[in-house]
Every structure is written in C-alpha cells, then in structure tokens.
C-alpha cells in the first residue's frame, strides 16, 4: 500500500511541475533558513555547557549603589576570591581572572605576534573550569610565574608540528615564558575565550585594595545543590569582615556582591566591564521568529496551492472512495505526498543552507557549520523538521481533499462540494502580514543605522591615525619630537584609551557622593587632536604632569551627576586627592547605543604604554603615513610598526548593528520572495479557474487592462488588509529593538509608506503577469472549453 501511495505521489508531483516546484522550492527555502537558525541557536545556547558541573559555577558581580542609580559590574576587587575560598564553606574552589587589556607582543624564533587573547589566572583556575589538557597537568601547570598554558590551535600557530612543551616565548620583550600545558579549546563555547593562560605575577601580595580598581573577574565553583541566595549572603558577610579601606578611614564597604550563574552570562549579561560583548537573547528570538516565519509562509503556500488545486484531485478522491478507500486512507495518502515533497525539499534545503552559510557566518562573525561537524545530528534534525513540516503543511489539504463526497465529485457537482477560498484569503493575509511587519521593521532598522552613523559624535574621528606604543622604554616626548618633523601632521597626542574602547573604572568622591566612573589618561593635546570642546576651566598643560596636586578634567555629565554646575572648577575629588581643572563638552565616546555617562580624564605619564593619536592633513595622506612609518621604526626598533585609523576602529562599534540590518534585510528578501512565489501560484490558479468568466467578459467587450484590473484587485485588497494588520506589530517590534539604543531615531511616516508601496509593487508584479496571460487568451478558447 505504501508503495502505491509513493508511486502516485511521485506521479502527481511530476504531473504538476510548476506547482510542485513552488511548493518544494518554498519549503526548501524555509527549511534552509531553519537549518541556519538551528545551528545558530544551538551555538548561542551551548555556552559554558562543556565545563564539568557548569551549573555550579558562578561569576561574582558587584553592585554599586548611590542615591540615584545602581551600577552592576562584572569586575570585582582582587582579594575577594581568596576571601571566599577561605571563609565560605559552600565554595569548592574560587579563582580570579584578568584579561589582557591590550595587544601584546609574543615573540617566538624572532617572529612577533600581537595577541590579546590571553589572561592571567590563579592556579585554582583549572579546578573551576575543567579544560581538557592534551599535554601537561592542569593541577600544577600554573605554579611557576613564567609558565604558560596554550590552546592546541595557538600551539600549532606558534610551533607547527614541534612538541610545544618546554618551548620558550618572549613576552613583550620583557621576559620569557615557558609552555607547560596544552588544552583543548575546540568545541568549548564560553565567555572566557582565551588561548593563553598565564599565572599572576608581581601581584600576590601587591594588590589588596577592596574599594578602588575593580579589575578582576572572580569565579566560584560551589558544592552541588548549594542555595545560591544563602551563598550570596555569606559572600557579602565574608567580604565585609575582611574589608579594609584603602584610604585608611573606617568607612564600611558599600559595594554589594551577587553571584551570577555562568550559563546566564552569554545571552543575558551586559554588565560594565564584561570580558567581551555578550549576545542578546532578543536577537536570538528574532532569528528564531524569522525562521519560523519563513517556514510558516512556505507551509501556507503549500496549503493554499494544494487546496486551490483540489478540483484536480477531486475525481481521484471520489473514485478511490467508491472502490473502497476510507477517509482515513485518503488522508494518509495526501499526507505521504506532502511529507515526500517536504523530504525532497530537505535535500534542497541542505544545499541552499550550505550556500548561504558563509554569508551568514560573515554577518554574525561566527564559524558555524551545518553538516561538517555534526552530520548525524543535523540530518536527524532535518528529517524530523521535514516530517513535521510535511505534516503541518499537508494536514489541512489532506483533511480537505479526503473529505470530498464521492457522489458530488463524480456527478460533476463539485462546486457545491466545498469552498476553501475564505481560508486561502486568510492565509494570504497572514503571509503578507509577516512580510509587512518585517519590511517595516527593516525600514526602521535602516533609519536608525543611518541616524547613528550620521549623527554628530561630539568629536572628530576623521584623519586620525592611531599607533599603539609597544616599547616601555619609549618616551612620549621623544616620539612626539620625532613625529613633529614630518610635514602633513597637524597634531600629536597620546591617550591610554580611544573612543570606542572599553575605558577603565575608578572610584571618585565629590562631596559626600562617590561612584565608580569611566576614566582615561590623556595628554595635553587630546582635545585638540579630537576636536573636543572645552566649556569651562582649562585643559592639562605639559607642566601639570610634574605638579604634585592631581588634576582632573571631567565632562558635562560628570558635572550634572555630582550636581556641581555652579562652580565645577576647583572642586576637590576627595578620595583621589585632586581637583577638577576643566570641563569638556559631552561627546559620544561609546557610540550611540549607550548614553553619555560621567567621565574623567587624568594626565597621562609614560609607563602606561599609551597610543599615539596623530591627526593628519587629508592632502598627501599616503605619503604622510609612509613617513610616519619610517620615522617610527627608529623609535621602537625591536617592534614592527602597527597602526589603524580611528574612524575605522570606531566604526566597528556599529558593525554588529549593520550586520544585523544586513541579515534582517537578506531574510526579509527571502521571506517576501517566498510569499510572492505563493501569490504567483495562486494567481496562476485563479486565472485558470476564471477562464470562462474572462472569456465571457471579453466577448461582452472587456479590454485586456480591465481584465487585468479585475484579477489583480482581489489580491491587492488582501495585501492591503495585511499591511493594515501588520504595521502596528512591525512598529512595536521596532520600538522594542530601538530600546537597545540610548539615542533613537524618530520614527516618521516614511517607513510605513515605503512598506505599503513595496508590498503593492511586489504583488502587482507577481500577479499581473498571470493576469495578462489570462486576459490575452482568445475568448473562444475559454468558452469552447466548457
């Protein structure tokens, strides 16, 4: 019996090639996107799960509260982890991590590499995080200060096929480190994404401050079934009992610590000072939603075309029933047909997904694979997906078709049998509602992207070359002197951090109020180089560096935050023993997704390895860059010349959003295409059905254009209803998305109008060809047929 069903399914597919193509291609597109979304979601939800007992591992976060706001940080004081290990019985192991704060030179065999994927950790690190060592022993790998542990990939990059153990790498021209262990990193998705782990150095007794300088990530592994709330309580008690104020006064610890399960970090944690940017569950949900949407649209195409063409199958159903088929058997037959189509579509879907994969990986900045790494799982998922899709797409047509009364279809009384047109109309409205919502959302996304890339930043990143200093022996003054000889350079400045980079955090107390704020160390030319305006007081001078009193320049938000608008200049910053000498205008150094926060600048001195900021004339730029390179190599002879341009670096802040816009655009295109494909099929069918009517109208004098309007307007009406239904939904999604930006574009009528016009144009283009064909038939053919 199954063979029989299969045979008749294949023959039906082949007989109705155009409709089979629309059905299969639509389903394949939908499933291809689903496969991509599946590997993406699987990746996004896989974080930390490869660590043993990952559910018992927590990161400690710090909450700073003052009168007005709370600030959560991912960073904690240095002494916290050891205090927890010693004082809190629930802690099985505790460890600290400090990530590299800039690229550093690692030299092997005189070949330098610049890496920032390294971190300093405690010896207990591998007790908390169960990295698998291929060589070496995780328990004593980091006991010596110059030991290093590398990932397999990193070891291969450095040493090729040689045995990595015992190899020596020079670290930043300062010291030699020795490789003692190799760990496996492939397959581990974690917010801790480093290829080199180094033990703490210089610090064991040095950094004991609890209240300044929060630079350390603390992790604890708790005993199974520990009550996290009670652990948090004990943690804060332990911190308070151990706390000593760095300023020596008796103030209590104001910061509150809270644990955070590491499995929640990747999708949910967006605290200050994260190791790297984490994902948003919202985006994952959007991709999931979009995957379902396109599949849903393809399924609707299937349902619509199958029921629309039911007349072609009605006789078959009638005959089968007369010779003995039950309704159940007929339903099974149609379900087998739809599952078969869905399985054929699956093969095509894998092909399409593999073709689209590099593009998606590029947009997401990931290296996802579909069939390469887990073929059996993916094929299994694909088969389950296609059977599910086949059932969902086929169930209504199967019930509809199998419900035909044999007597009606066999006596030619088919028209009275059943009418599926209202359902089809509803489904077309559903499809185009999704299209309308997505097109509107996309329009608003692009409007926002345009807004954030064209809005004034408050500083000028153009024509600014950024050169990181690498040699601690190099003095800024000698670098400036060397560069100033080059014609074509306008200004030379130095700063620790540049706009777009994560700033350091520091505690500042003005009057009674204190808070941890972003700060940067800059030299006296900083605001000139970046074209930032001074609104009160003065900026640093070269002489300030020698001065014994610490001096600070703050932004307007700082002034507002501490409520010192009346007389900001001369205000004392108590815990730093310094005064405010100037106020600068607020500028968007974090881009536009975060609002401008209070910000402090301090004078820069030499040991910080800052970056040179070189403002160049636009004329003759390539020559100037060459000259700078030539002169610079004299300054840092052991180091290769490295530079970038600030506008490009800063632009990277928008890259994620731009990529999201591109991905959304691409998927919207696919969705609209799939919906249009269905509309095309339906229009073809409608034209076929109304053949006789069209013939009669033409005999009575209707012109081709009148006939085209007749057919097109029905579809247009559906599409317009869809737009009305969906625009509010698209608007709400867009509003939700916009909340991730501190600065949002104003939504005007343009994207709404553009959405409606786009949909109307698409549906006219889709339907009119079929309408034209139907309208140009010689009327006698249509009438004679009957």
């Amino acid at each position, binding site marked *: 019996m199954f063979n*029989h069903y299969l045979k*008749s399914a294949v023959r039906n597919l082949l007989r109705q090639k155009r409709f089979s193509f629309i059905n299969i291609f639509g389903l394949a597109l939908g499933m291809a996107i689903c496969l991509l979304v599946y590997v993406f979601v699987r990746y996004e939800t896989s974080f930390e799960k490869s660590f043993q007992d990952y559910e018992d591992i927590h990161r400690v976060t710090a909450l700073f509260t003052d009168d007005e706001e709370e600030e959560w940080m991912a960073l904690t004081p240095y002494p916290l982890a050891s205090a927890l290990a010693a004082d809190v019985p629930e802690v099985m192991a505790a460890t600290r991590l400090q990530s590299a704060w800039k690229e550093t030179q690692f030299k092997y065999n005189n070949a330098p590499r610049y890496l920032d994927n390294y971190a300093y950790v405690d010896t207990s690190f591998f007790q908390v995080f169960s990295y698998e060592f291929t060589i070496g022993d995780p328990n004593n790998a980091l006991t010596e200060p110059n030991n290093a542990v590398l990932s397999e990939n990193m070891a291969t990059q450095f040493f090729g096929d040689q045995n990595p153990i015992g190899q020596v790498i020079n670290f930043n021209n300062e010291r030699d480190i020795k490789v003692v262990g190799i760990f496996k990193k492939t397959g581990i998705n974690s917010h801790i994404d480093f290829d080199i782990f180094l033990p703490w150095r210089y610090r064991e007794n040095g950094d004991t401050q609890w209240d300044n300088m929060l630079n350390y990530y603390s992790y604890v592994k708790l005993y199974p079934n520990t009550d996290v709330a009670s652990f948090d309580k004990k943690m804060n008690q332990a911190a308070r009992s151990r706390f000593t104020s760095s300023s020596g006064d008796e103030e209590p610890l104001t910061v509150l610590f809270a644990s955070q399960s590491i499995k929640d970090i990747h999708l949910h944690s967006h605290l200050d000072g994260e190791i790297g940017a984490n994902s948003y569950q919202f985006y994952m949900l959007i991709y999931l939603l979009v995957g379902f949407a396109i599949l849903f649209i393809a399924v609707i195409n299937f349902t619509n075309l199958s029921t629309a063409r039911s007349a072609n199958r009605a*006789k*078959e159903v009638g005959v*089968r029933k007369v*010779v003995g088929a039950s309704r159940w058997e007929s339903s099974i037959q149609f379900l087998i047909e739809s599952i078969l189509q869905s399985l054929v579509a699956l093969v095509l879907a894998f092909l399409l997904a593999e073709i689209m994969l590099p593009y998606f990986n590029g947009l997401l900045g990931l290296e996802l694979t579909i069939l390469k790494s887990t073929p059996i799982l993916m094929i299994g998922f694909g088969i389950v997906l296609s059977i599910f899709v086949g059932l969902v797409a086929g169930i209504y047509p199967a019930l509809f078709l199998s419900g035909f009364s044999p007597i009606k279809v066999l*006596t030619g009384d088919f028209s009275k049998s059943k009418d599926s047109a209202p359902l089809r109309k509803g489904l077309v409205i559903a499809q185009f509602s999704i299209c309308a919502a997505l097109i509107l959302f996309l329009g608003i996304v692009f409007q926002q992207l345009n807004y954030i890339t064209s809005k004034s930043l408050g500083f000028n990143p153009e024509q600014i070359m950024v050169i990181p200093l690498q040699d601690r022996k190099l003095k800024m003054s000698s670098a400036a002197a060397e560069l100033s000889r080059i014609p074509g350079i306008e200004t030379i400045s130095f700063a620790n951090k540049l706009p777009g980079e994560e700033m350091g955090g520091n505690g500042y107390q003005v009057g009674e109020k204190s808070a941890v704020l972003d700060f940067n160390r800059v030299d006296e030319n900083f605001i000139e180089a970046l074209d930032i305006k001074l609104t009160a007081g003065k900026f640093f001078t070269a002489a300030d560096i020698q001065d014994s009193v610490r001096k600070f320049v703050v932004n307007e938000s700082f002034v507002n935050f501490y409520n010192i608008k009346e007389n900001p200049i001369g205000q004392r910053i108590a815990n730093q023993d310094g005064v405010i000498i100037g106020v600068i205008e607020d500028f968007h150094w974090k881009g536009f997704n975060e609002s401008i926060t209070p910000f402090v600048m301090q004078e820069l001195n030499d040991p910080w390895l800052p970056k040179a900021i070189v403002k160049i004339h636009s004329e003759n730029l390539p020559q100037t860059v060459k000259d700078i390179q030539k002169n610079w190599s004299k300054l840092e002879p052991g180091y290769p010349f490295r530079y970038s341009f600030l506008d490009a670096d800063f632009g990277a802040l928008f890259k994620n959003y731009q990529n999201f816009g591109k991905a959304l655009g691409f998927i919207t295109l696919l969705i609209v295409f799939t919906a249009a494909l269905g509309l095309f099929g339906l229009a073809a069918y409608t034209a076929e059905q109304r053949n006789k009517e069209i013939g009669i109208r033409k005999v009575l004098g209707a012109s081709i254009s009148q006939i085209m309007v007749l057919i097109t307007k029905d579809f247009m009406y559906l599409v317009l209803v869809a737009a009305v239904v969906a625009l509010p939904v698209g608007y709400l999604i867009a509003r939700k998305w916009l909340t991730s930006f501190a600065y949002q574009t104003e939504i005007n009528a343009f994207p709404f109008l553009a959405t409606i016009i786009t949909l109307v144009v698409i549906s006219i283009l889709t339907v009119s060809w079929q309408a034209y064909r139907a309208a140009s038939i010689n009327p006698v053919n249509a009438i004679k047929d009957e």
Partner: protein
Amino acid sequence: MIRTNKLKKVYRTEEIETTALNEVDLHIQSGEFVSIMGPSGCGKSTLLNILGLIDNPSSGEYYFLDEEVSKYSERQRSNLRKHNIGFIFQSFNLIDELSVYENVELPMLYTKVPAGERKKRTEELLEKMNMMHRKNHFPQQLSGGQQQRVAVARAIVNNPKIILADEPTGNLDSSNGDDVMKTLAQLNQEGTTIIMVTHSAYCSEFGNRVVRLLDGQIVSENTIAKYRI
C-alpha cells in the same frame, strides 16, 4: 439481497425543497439483473447512489444483505462497499495517474488482498478483458471502449456480490457498448447481481427486470421474459 422501504431523498436549498426519491419500495433478489429507467431528473442516479452506499437516504429503510444500513456512518458504509459492491460509471472514472494495471489492482489494496493474489487476479481479469497488452498504459492513452473495459475489470476484481452501473454505455459507440453489455450479462450469468441505470431500451433488454421511475416514484416494474445475452 436488497430491500428498500419507503425510501426517500429530499434535497434542500434555502428556498426550494426537491424530492428526488419519494417512498420507493424496491426488492432485488440475489442474481437479478435490474435495469432502472426513466427520464432525466426522475431520481435514477439518486437511487443507484443510495443503493451503492455512496449516499444516505433522508428517510426510509434500506436493507442490504438483510442489514438495515440507512443510518450507517461513512466508515461502516465504506467497509460494506469495498467488499460487496463494484461500480461502473458512464465517464469511466479511472484515475489518470495510475496505469491500467494499477487501476484494476486498486480496490484490492483497500481490501488488503496479498500482493501475489493481487497480481494473479489483476492479470486474469486483464486477459479476460483483452487488455493485458495495455496494462502499462495510462487511461488517457486508451479509447473509450478500452477505458470502460478497464473500469469493468476494476469493478469486479474484488468479486463483489453486486455491480452498480450508471449508464455504462453512455459514452461509448454501439459496438463498444455492446461488448460492455455482453460482459455484464456474462457476469450476471455467473451469479453477480447487477443494477444498471440506463436510457437505452436496448441495453435494458440485457437484464431480467426493468424498473421505471418518474418524479422519484416507481411507476412500473416489468419482467423481461426473454432477455439478451
């Protein structure tokens, strides 16, 4: 074998009520060959459809093999139908996507006849109908007469107790029509009960009884003394 008691079929639309069958009492013995005749719209096909269990009466009783079946569900009727009734239509109603062989085999799939037996019976019947050489062809490649021969083969492949034929020669020329009628008569000779709706007096003479309908009622029943073979 078949007995109806005050069988009634009424079609209702919003405004009009049409009585297609009006208290029809009919009794057909096993082995009979009954022709139902009457003008268009008299209710012949409606009666045949109800007798064939593809339609339900509005009221009245219908005994099929001594069982009252007028209130049967579609599932029960389907079950009775596939084991006991074969249908032949004016427009043949072969399935276009299935070959000659597969069309004939189809009813046995629904009665779960084993594959070997299916093959044997299908081939026997195709031989008998002289269609073996065309077994891999599709219906649209056959002439009307050939299509009806396939349809007859399909109708009898499950050895039904009764064959219902609705104008079986209506779409055929006289020679092909004659062939079909002879086949039916032959089947009747072999013991199959046949009920046939026809307009043709000539065809009705192949049977042993003619039932005439007018406006949904039986107006006469004649036994044919010497019928054709």
